[in-house]
Structure formats: C-alpha cells, structure tokens
C-alpha cells in the first residue's frame, strides 16, 4: 500500500493565503515532522490533509484520493489529533477511546463486540487499560495524551496526523509519548505526519522533516539536512545553534543575543 502524497495544496481563509502550493510525501511507515514558525501553516496543513479545512490540490493516501472520499471513509484512513483535544471531564476513559470507533459504526448504530475489543486492545497497547474506568477529568496531562493516542489507535487508521502531540507535557512525558508513538507506528505500520515545535525532539524522532514558512515548503529532507543553523535562524527569526548530541543526532539550542545573565 502506498504512502501519503500531497500535491500543490492550497488553502485560503477570506483572502489570506495560508498554504500556497505545498507538496509533501511520506512513505508507508515513515514519520515526517512538519516544522516552522508560528503561523507557517503547520496545523492548517494537517487539517487540509484530513479534509476538515477546505482546500484545493491533491491528497492521496494508500492509493485513495482522500478528497473524493466521504468523511467516514476518510476517517478510516487517517486519524487526526488536534493540539488540545477536548476532554469532557466526566467522561469515562473507555467511552472516550470507544468514540475512536465512530468511522466504523453506521449513523444510528451502536458499537459491536469488535469495536469494544479494538478499544480495549488500544488501551492495553498503551499500557492504559487500568485507567479504563477513570474519568478524563481525573487524568494528568501525560495520561490524557496517552488516552488520546489510544483513541486514535482504536480508529484503526493507517495515517496519524498529530498536531503538536506533546506541547502540553514536561520533558520526561514528551519523550515517553513520542517513544510510544514511535513504537505504535512500527507495530502497526502507521504513517505519521506530526507538526512539531520542539526541533530537538523532531530531529530525534522523525525520519524526515519538512520546513514550512509562510505557507510554503522551504526545504525537506533528513533532520541533519533541514536543521541548518542559518536557515532555521532566518525562518524562526532567532539565533540558534545546532549541536551534536553525541549519539548521532542533533540538538537545537536557542541563543540569546545580548544581556545574557552570565555576562552582566
């Protein structure tokens, strides 16, 4: 089954162009990170691929033209997780994960045995089965993020579109959740496209990065190639340094220009 291909994607909101002819591709099983400054169009790109934002251009995944599919069929191919998912505080975790089965259930239908076992397996594979009877309002940020991933997994879509999946978490939980995503995509042969703010984590987890700026792709390639200090500095409007992490990866560090406390 072929991966994701996005061709000449354009999105405009009331005369403001947000995406201006974006081309992105991701091979089956590949994790592609979308980076770029605020307002570059990262979230819009994910939404346009999923079809929740009107766009022009071609989006294909697994040999299907996503634009031609009805919304439920699209949701069976691609799961979208927004940056801040809504968490009804008094909803049970299991009921929440089960909502991921919606694209597989008819309009007025209810969940069957298979839906229930799929939701159960999704929770189990994230090590969250013991949380099934808890309420969403009782979970910590890290636990909720794992439950959200379980819901996306229960959707049984082969493409995961994640908008800043770890932006609300501390460093430890960021690493934990991204490691989980990496494990899930390998176990379930998922293609992952994620918008990432943290360039260091993006470099450590993504197979490939796409740098987006002003609605256009600036460059695209392996993290070492894309994370070029002058290029990133220019597009983020900040001085940054790219350092070797000593393990074969890179670390991106912002550098304050003047007034550094150490120099006072």
């Amino acid at each position, binding site marked *: 089954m072929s991966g994701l291909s996005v061709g000449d994607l354009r999105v405009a909101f009331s005369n403001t162009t947000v995406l201006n002819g974006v081309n992105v591709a991701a091979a089956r099983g590949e994790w592609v990170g979308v980076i770029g400054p605020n307002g570059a169009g990262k979230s819009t790109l994910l939404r346009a691929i999923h079809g929740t934002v009107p766009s022009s251009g071609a989006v294909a995944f697994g040999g299907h033209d996503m634009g031609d599919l009805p919304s*439920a069929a699209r949701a069976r191919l691609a799961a979208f997780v927004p940056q801040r998912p*809504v968490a009804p505080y008094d909803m*049970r975790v299991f009921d929440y994960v089960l*909502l991921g089965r919606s*694209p597989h259930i008819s*309009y*007025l239908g209810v969940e069957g045995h298979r839906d229930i076992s799929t939701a159960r397996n999704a*929770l189990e594979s994230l090590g969250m089965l013991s949380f099934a*009877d808890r309420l969403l309002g009782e979970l910590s940020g890290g636990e909720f993020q794992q439950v959200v991933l379980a819901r996306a997994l229960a959707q049984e879509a082969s493409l995961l579109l994640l908008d800043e999946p770890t932006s609300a978490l501390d460093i430890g939980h960021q690493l934990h959740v991204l490691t989980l995503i990496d494990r899930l995509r390998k176990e379930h042969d998922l293609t992952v496209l994620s918008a990432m703010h943290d360039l260091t984590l993006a470099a450590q987890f993504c197979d490939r990065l796409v740098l987006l700026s002003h609605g256009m792709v600036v460059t695209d390639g392996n993290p070492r190639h894309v994370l070029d200090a002058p290029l990133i500095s220019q597009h983020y409007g900040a001085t940054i340094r790219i350092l070797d992490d000593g393990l074969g990866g890179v670390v991106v560090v912002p550098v304050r220009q003047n007034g550094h406390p150490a120099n006072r």
Partner: protein
Amino acid sequence: MSATAPDRPTRLSARAVLVGLAAILGAVTLGSLVGPVHIPFGEAIKRLFGSPSSLTDRQADILTAVRLPRVVLGGLVGSMLALAGASYQGVFRNPLADPYLLGVAAGAGLGATVAISAGATPAVLPAAAFAGAIVAVVATYAVGRSVGRRSTTSLILAGVAMASFLTAIQTYVQQRHTDTLREVYAWILGRLSTSGWHEVLLILPYLVFGGTVILLHRRMLDVLSLGEEEASALGVPVRRVRLLVVGAATLGTAAAVAVSGLIGFVGIIVPHAIRLVTGASYRVILPLSAMFGAAFLIIADLTARTVLSPAELPIGVVTAFLGAPFFVLVLRTAKGLR
C-alpha cells in the same frame, strides 16, 4: 447508577431503569389520588382494571377525566422538556443551554399573547403558541446561518437576539391590552391546561417523534461532546446531527409549551442532576432524563394544585422553588453518589 465493567462501554443499567420506572409510578399514583376529592388507592386500581369498585361516579370521573389526563400530560411535558434540555446541552456543549435557547419560549409567548389579546378561544391557544415557537426558531436558524456557519456560538447569539426582539413585541402587545394582562401572565408562568385527554392527544405525535429522533442520536451526542472539529474528524456529519437533534427537540418543546406555557428549570436541572450522578454518556443521560423529567413535573404539578387548594400556584413557580434547592443538594452530594 451505571454499574458497568471497567473495560466495557457505559450502558443504561437495568437498575437505573427500574429506579426511573418506580419514580414515575410513584408520581403517577400520588398525582392521581391526592387532591380535594380523596380517592382510595385500592378502589382506583380496581376501577382502572375494570373490576367493580366502591368509587362513586363522581370519584371515578375525577380520576379518569380530570386527574389521569393531567398527570399524563404533566409526565409527557416534563419528559420532553428534560430530554430537549439534555439535547441542547449536548449539541451546544453548553451547560446553561435549555430548550428555550433558540427562542422557543419568546416565540410561543408572543403567539399566545397575540391569541389571548385578540380574544381567541382557548382552543386556539396551543396552535398559536406552537406556531410562534416554530417561526422563532426557524428565524433564529436563518439569522445564525447568515452571520457565520462554522460555530454554534453564532446560533446561540442569534437566539439571544431573537428572544429579546420577540419579547419586546410580546411586552408591547401585552401592555396594549391591559384587560387580558392577567391571563397572559398566568400563561407565561406555566399551567398544565386540561380539558380531558384532548391536549394529550394533541401533543403526543410531536413528542413521540421528537423523543424518538433524540434517543436514536444518543451515540452521536457522545461524539459531539468532543466538539465540532474532532467529531468531524471522526467522520460524523456534525451539521446534519445538529439540525436533526435541534429540530426534533424544538418540535417537541414547542408542542409541550403550547399546552403548558413556559415551565422553566426542568430542562436544565433534570439532565444536570442525572449527569452528576451517572456521568457524561448520553446513552444514559437521555433515557433517564425522560423518566425523571416526567416524575418531577408530575410532583411539581401536584404541589402546584394542592398547596394553596382550591387556588393553584403557577407550576413554573413550583419547579423553580422545588428544583433549585434539590439541585443544590445533588450538586453537594454528587461526588459521593458516583
């Protein structure tokens, strides 16, 4: 009340249904037997099942032609208002949403006021109120859509504007016809009008239709609680769900309002009390709201007609007077109940 295995979906438990049915049965019994004319329980049961009983003809008449229709009407109206309130809260994801959110009350109020002021016969009143309610909500929808299509906020704000506008006209008409002021006021405060089974039969089709459509959408309302974007991303046709559920709830509410006037608070406190005890799943909230809404309004109506007997209190006064403290009690104890 929702005893469910940890790794199973929340379902309506048999126990919850039994408690709901017991509440309805208790309310119906009290509502039919208590009043200025005493009716003994055993004899009433005999009579209803066709066995010979010691009830006088007058007692039997009061039971079958006055009290029972009023109890059934109260149950139907309470059930519909609670169900519609739960639906509105679900669709708009707003805990303060009640069935009157989109102008049903103001529209029905204007319709009824115009009918009363014009000297129409009481028989015309429900039709006028119903028409006013439907026109108001259709106008709200049209205004809401013309402002912005993407959020429910524009619809809610359109409802606020429409309600104010229609209430202004209603107040104007009311002030111009001071001779009918009292009658209009009584209607606005709510009263279960009764002339035998006529009203029950009048509103039954709308309530059955509205209630069925809402209950069929119980899973959809759960999906909608994730918000418009995530529900769409799960392949749910959000706009269609919203239109159908709001349409069904509005139709049912308009029918209920047409025969009961404006009974506040039921649509807010009943679903919230249920939700506090059972959790967020609409597959539990909706059926239980319907059952407890019925029981609650029957008891409220019983209170309204007995406290100052032979005078009658407006039922809206009773729902708020009984409902507010009860709701505070549930709020305070809900954590322990779950």
